[in-house]
């Protein structure tokens, strides 16, 4: 309970600090001046960041959300202003428009029935389900293996970290050429060592599952470095006493990994699980770079074979008349990400040891 007097005092302080920010002269008591100047200074320091965050982060989130509920929103390229709400009111009073925009769930209905969106949702889910567990398990094994050796440790650390510092587009294109059709491709040459005949991988002759193999391999290659590094830093903080105790008890390596390392690494595993789920759900750059035919080509003769949710958003956005749909799809993506994060946080309450 805040009493009336202190409430008023706070209001005064606030007003005075505002005046101070505006550069107006002050004549207040010495005792309160220090408090005031601190608030004022804080806001001066915050203003540059806040202006840009407000303009390019907070406002866009709200605006996109509103836009997703406007039918026939079509001012993508900036003609006639871009602000969703003002646009809406302008359109209401503008009789030249044949169709007046109105608030509804139409965009969501259209998006959720759009075959392209459903395909992209399925594609994304497949990529997530296969790459996330695989990458985490392999990263964990690599981290544990690297932690157990001394000679060459630094060398392996550098090797496994290299993919992180490379340009995803550039290496995606190298993979595209490694997976060239016919015997001339490096990967096909590798397969021929095992007597497998040359396959098509990424060209229009390849089927969806051949493309999937490349997408999985590249996603793992591209995403594993960060996970290994996080696991390594987690392993470094585990006290050696636990391992000594386990050795005295005669525990074997599998038991040590399952009973000591994984439980003690659980905060890092949770963090990595959440971030990789989110990251994989936003797959886009690595896929277009593999097909290497521009920002809106996702393979196959239609260019839509491996379209992902983010890919759907970007390609839909290009069409002036479908911006509302892109906004609706991006909100659907947000909801999916929130649900995944929430589920994992709840599920981890029992499993994660801090």
């Amino acid at each position, binding site marked *: 309970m805040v009493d009336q007097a202190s409430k008023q005092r706070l209001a005064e302080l606030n007003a005075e600090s505002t005046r101070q920010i505006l550069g107006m002269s002050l004549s207040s008591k010495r005792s309160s001046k220090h408090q005031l100047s*601190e*608030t004022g*200074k*804080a806001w001066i*320091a915050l203003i*540059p*960041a806040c202006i*840009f*965050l407000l303009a*390019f982060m*907070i406002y*866009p989130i709200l*605006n*996109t959300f509103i*836009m997703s509920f406007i039918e026939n929103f079509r001012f*993508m*390229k900036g003609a006639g202003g*871009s602000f969703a709400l003002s646009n809406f009111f302008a359109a209401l009073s503008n009789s030249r428009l044949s169709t007046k925009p109105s608030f509804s769930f139409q965009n969501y209905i259209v998006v959720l029935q759009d075959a392209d969106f459903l395909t992209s949702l399925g594609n994304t889910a497949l990529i997530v389900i296969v790459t996330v567990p695989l990458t985490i398990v*392999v990263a964990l*094994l690599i981290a544990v293996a690297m932690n157990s050796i001394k000679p*060459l440790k630094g060398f392996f650390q550098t*090797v496994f*970290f*290299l993919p992180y*510092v*490379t*340009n*995803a*587009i*550039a*290496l995606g*294109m*190298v*993979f595209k*050429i*490694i997976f060239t059709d*016919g*015997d*001339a491709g*490096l990967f096909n*040459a590798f397969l021929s060592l095992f007597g497998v005949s040359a396959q098509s991988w990424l060209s229009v002759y390849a089927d969806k599952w051949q493309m999937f193999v490349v997408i999985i391999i590249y996603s793992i*290659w591209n995403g*594993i470095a960060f996970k290994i590094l996080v696991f*390594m*830093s987690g392993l470094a903080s585990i006290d050696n006493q636990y391992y000594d105790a386990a050795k005295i008890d005669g525990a074997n390596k599998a038991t040590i990994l399952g009973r000591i390392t994984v439980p003690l690494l659980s905060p*890092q595993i949770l963090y990595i699980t*959440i971030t990789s789920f*989110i990251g994989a759900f*936003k797959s*886009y*750059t690595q896929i277009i770079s593999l097909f*290497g*035919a*521009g920002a809106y080509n996702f393979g196959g003769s239609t260019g839509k074979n491996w379209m992902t949710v983010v890919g759907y958003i970007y390609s839909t*956005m290009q069409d002036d008349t479908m911006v509302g749909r892109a*906004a609706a799809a*991006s*909100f659907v*993506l947000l909801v999916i*990400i929130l649900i995944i994060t929430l589920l994992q946080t709840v599920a981890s309450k029992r499993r994660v040891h801090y």
Partner: protein
Amino acid sequence: MANSDVYFTSPHKRRMYIARKVGSTTLTYAFLGLLGLFMIVPFVFMIITSFRNADAYDLDVAHRVFNLIPSWWNSEVNASNYTLDNYATVFNYRNPVTGEAINFAFFYINTVYVSVVSTIFTLITSVLAAFAFARCNFKGKNLLFTILLATMMIPGEMMVITNYQTVKLLGWDNTFAALIFVHGVSVFYIFYLRQTFQQIPNELFLAAKVDGYGHFRYLLRVMIPIAMPTIVTITILSLMGSWNAYIWPNLVASGKWRLNDQWSMKLVSNGLMSLFTNSDTGLSRDTVRIAGSMVCTLPLFVFFLIFRKYIMRGVSRSGIKG
């Protein structure tokens, strides 16, 4: 492998122990070696192919033979198998149909300019904001900070849709402003810096106050020097981020610079993508494309080798907070 601290009840057990130890060590190295090879093969392939003679390479492809290291003794192309021609093409290519120049020198200059200016901008705004959150007390601080943290959850695509329109409305398309200011403030960097600033003991502030330092002089003379490792890490991550940016530049800066229509606005990743897209270039030499990839990757490599310690620490630090 310090075995000296392990004692055995019989020589047999000792032999068993050593055998198992040697076996598991071999397995560990084999496992790491195989996966390490998987990590490094694309780089090796990229480096070798980028220097290969384009005609010899295409001949291999036409004859459906794979030659990572080409056989110099029976090459049908007598010219030397390794050449710098691919790089020369990457730095000076003009589309025969559209006349559009693909020149990585332009892309380099654009990228360096954008990454340096946007990093300076990011540093100034982040340091100031982190300072306010870590050092000052003001009403609504926690609320504001919670809101900022919450926005980290929201996918960037939601912002891109509106930002794209805002940029068009402001007339910022194909300008550096769109590349520098729109993503200029990062909540993550503010968060990371605030954590570092908060570890600075309060006594230092009081001592500085006795010496007559105000808030901003304290920030400049005490906090920033102490937080220097974090600031260096942020600088590196931000520079790398600009170098790798693709999606946003592709939307707002894929045309020509408005002040000079010979000058493409593209950054390296976008330039590379157009080098690969047949319809854009009319060029279908794989060796040239690989040389383009190499040109995109090389500065990052050099950067990584120099600042390895800072980069790895910064990246792993960002993971510990969970």
